[in-house]
């Protein structure tokens, strides 16, 4: 180890003055930059009121939306308003029109049913219908038999006639005279068990719902008549009730959620995966395993007389109502086509124009300037505005997207190409010119070989980046998958479709990225050896 004496240190400092005595700006460039950016962040935080927005965000929804990307919910409803339990599934349930999944167990038994039916019927109540007729609940014939108090239109029902009505009805009538309630015991569904996950389930009997999660059970009393749900005073944190008597939510994490109302319990059970990805519930292939589908497609009896089973299968996949494969593929192809044709046209137009704009190739300052300003104009009018312009002209679709990319990128390529041309090596041109070549030949053999790899490389780079921009401008109507994505997101229901389209886009971008990189590295390789 050599140690420097103070003299030597001073000597080094004297020989390299700029290394030890930098200007203030250079010495503090980094701290100043960091402080400036920190101040800017504070300003932006205030400008966009980021804190308020972040705290007001619906973070609870975010989890559900994210879960929707890779899973789906089945939402059976158990109705117990009448006393008999009835399990229903929504019309477009992923399980088809009439499912009986094994996780919903219905136990038959005797149930006490309170039936609400139109007025008890028969002749006796007819006397009571005079006033009610004005409210048009009754059959048209009723007013004919009514007597007397037809004029009391606004009082709805006079006390006396109401009493008559009540007498006529058989059981524990509840209220108005135009309908009446009857209690009877009959066979029905006495109990429904819904299994949410391994340790969680919901047990529903008339008048009570028992929710269990991980060994902890809570009994909720349901009262359809008074529209109340009675919950115990202390609830575990996975059960919530806004106020006493109102509906109760029980959460089971990713597995699902149960909403208990006074007259109905709505269950949402979540399953991992994409439901009915290949065939929707209307398809004859729906619900079959892969070997079954293959067997039906190739050797089964014809499902439709006019077409082979394979054709039916393909048609069912493409026209899947839930996933709309055919439409998604067409829109994706539109996006690819928009980027490809737009970039290609832009290159084709910008190539000759850039020769005219380069001041060393075309020594005409006026023409150079006009073309360069034209390129700047095209670049500076945002792709968004071009997209809107052409959407208005051609209607929504890929023609608008192609034109928008074409117009923007003609400017970009024109600028890049003319700059490349201005930086070329003049010796080759001179050499070709000195042997008496025509002006066209000078460009062809003196200029083009120098710049072509760079030109193509830049074109490929923009082809790939345009594939991404084409997705976005699609959302304003310029064709492609953008609009479809946007529509799927707007409903907030179809996040799994969004995930599907995103995966397709990612695949396309990766494939094009690799093609473009491979071509570019081949093009620039000889140049690197120079």
């Amino acid at each position: 180890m050599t140690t420097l004496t103070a003299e030597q240190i001073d000597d080094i400092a004297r020989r390299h003055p700029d290394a030890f005595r930098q200007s203030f700006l250079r010495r503090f460039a980094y701290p100043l930059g960091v402080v400036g950016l920190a101040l800017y962040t504070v300003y932006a935080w205030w400008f966009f009121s980021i804190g308020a927005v972040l705290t007001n965000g619906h973070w609870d929804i975010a989890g559900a939306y994210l879960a929707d990307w890779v899973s789906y919910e089945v939402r059976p409803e158990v109705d117990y308003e009448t006393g008999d339990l009835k399990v229903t599934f929504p019309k477009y349930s992923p399980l088809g029109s009439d499912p009986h999944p094994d996780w919903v167990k219905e136990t038959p038994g005797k149930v006490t049913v309170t039936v609400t039916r139109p007025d008890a019927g028969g002749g006796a109540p007819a006397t009571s219908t005079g006033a009610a007729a004005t409210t048009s609940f009754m059959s048209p014939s009723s007013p004919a038999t009514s007597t007397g108090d037809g004029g009391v239109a606004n009082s709805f029902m006079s006390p006396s006639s109401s009493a008559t009505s009540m007498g006529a009805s058989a059981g524990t009538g509840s209220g108005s005279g135009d309908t009446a309630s009857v209690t009877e015991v009959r066979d029905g569904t006495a109990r429904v068990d819904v299994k949410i996950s391994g340790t969680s389930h919901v047990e529903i009997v008339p008048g009570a719902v028992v929710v269990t999660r991980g060994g902890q059970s809570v009994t909720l009393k349901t009262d359809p008549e008074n529209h109340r749900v009675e919950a115990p005073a202390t609830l575990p944190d996975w059960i919530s009730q806004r106020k006493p008597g109102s509906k109760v939510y029980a959460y089971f994490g990713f597995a699902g959620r149960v909403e208990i109302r006074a007259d109905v319990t709505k269950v949402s059970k979540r399953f991992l995966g994409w439901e009915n990805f290949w065939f929707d519930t209307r398809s004859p292939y729906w619900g079959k395993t892969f070997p079954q589908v293959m067997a039906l497609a190739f050797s089964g009896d014809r499902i439709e007389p006019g077409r082979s089973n394979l054709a039916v299968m393909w048609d069912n996949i493409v026209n899947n109502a839930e996933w709309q494969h055919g439409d998604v593929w067409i829109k994706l192809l539109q996006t690819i086509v928009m980027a490809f044709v737009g970039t290609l046209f832009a290159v084709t137009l910008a190539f000759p124009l850039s020769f005219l704009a380069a001041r060393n190739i075309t020594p005409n300052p006026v023409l150079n300037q006009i073309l360069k300003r034209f390129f700047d104009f095209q670049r500076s009018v945002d792709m968004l505005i071009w997209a809107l312009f052409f959407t208005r002209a051609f209607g929504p679709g890929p023609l608008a997207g192609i034109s928008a990319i074409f117009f923007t990128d003609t400017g970009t390529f024109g600028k890049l190409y003319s700059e490349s041309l201005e930086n070329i090596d003049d010796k080759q041109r001179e050499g070709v010119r000195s042997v008496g070549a025509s002006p066209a030949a000078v460009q062809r053999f003196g200029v083009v070989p120098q710049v072509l790899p760079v030109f193509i490389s830049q074109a490929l780079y923009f082809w790939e980046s345009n594939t991404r921009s084409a997705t976005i401008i699609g959302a304003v109507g310029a064709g492609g998958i953008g609009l479809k994505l946007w529509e799927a997101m707007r409903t907030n229901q179809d996040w799994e479709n969004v995930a599907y389209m995103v995966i397709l886009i990612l695949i396309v971008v990766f494939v094009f990225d690799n093609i473009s990189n491979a071509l570019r590295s081949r093009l620039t390789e000889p140049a690197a050896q120079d």
Partner: protein
Amino acid sequence: MALADATGRDSYIRDGRYDVERHWRDLNATRRLYTIGGLILLAVALVASLWFANETNAGKFIDRLPHLFDFAGDLIPRDGWEMWRALFDRPSPYDTGSLQYNYPVGRVYVTDTFYIPEYFYKMLETLNIALLATFIGFTFGFALCFLAAKNLTASRWLRFTVRRFMEILRAFPEIVIAGFFLAIFSLGPIPAIIAVSIHTIGALGKMFFEVVENADMKADEGLRAVGGNWLERVWFGIVPQVMPNFLSYALLRFEINVRASTILGAVGAGGIGEVLRLSISRGHEAKTLAIILLLFATIVCVDQFSAWLRKKLVGKQAFEFGR
């Protein structure tokens, strides 16, 4: 001796000349074949693409050609000054209380008398979205790029993971991120900031690590020789030489982000894009024209400023992107 040598070489060249020439002709023929084949392939793809685009478009190209300037036709204001009144929120003589000609209603008052015209304020919002997103992208891209560079990170797995991560950030459609956060935060500029930031992290990260891989490693070697740890080697050996390039790329990204945040605005994420879309859909010709003019002027200014600054930072190299 010399003669024999000369004849030997001469005969070798003479014999070989035909070989060389033949080989050259073969190469040329192959190249021509590839060129022609490639061009034919390109032409077929182009024709098929055009047919497909025309077929799936709402209107056919030939039928719609007379409507090419419909958009421009919608923008003709009632008189020449309308556009300027709309731009600066001055009262209009055509004002009947409807939103179309009621320009002063959009004024953003800073003090009791001083106001910022609506569209300038919205433009500022868009610029701030782009700037903040570029800044966030720069910070994270800066932090990640050294881990993705071959010359600084020995672990192949770490490099691979970081690179794939940045690729996913880059390729993930911005519009989906914006849409997702719009669902959480409701309408406003924050979703656009998040979406553009995420894309910027990936895009800048890639450009940054390529710069780092091309950096001169002598400074790093020197620091390694005196026992500098990884952080010191990066901070004192690499960062000073790549910083101008980093800043240049960040400026380039800022230009791109201004455009991206405008487009995201048009799908509901605030800023000038949103008012532009609203104005077009409501048929407010003078307002639309004012916004387009302002957008155009802003982009020209941003591009010029960024080009000037990049030229100062890295000289001619600034324009060599896309290689």
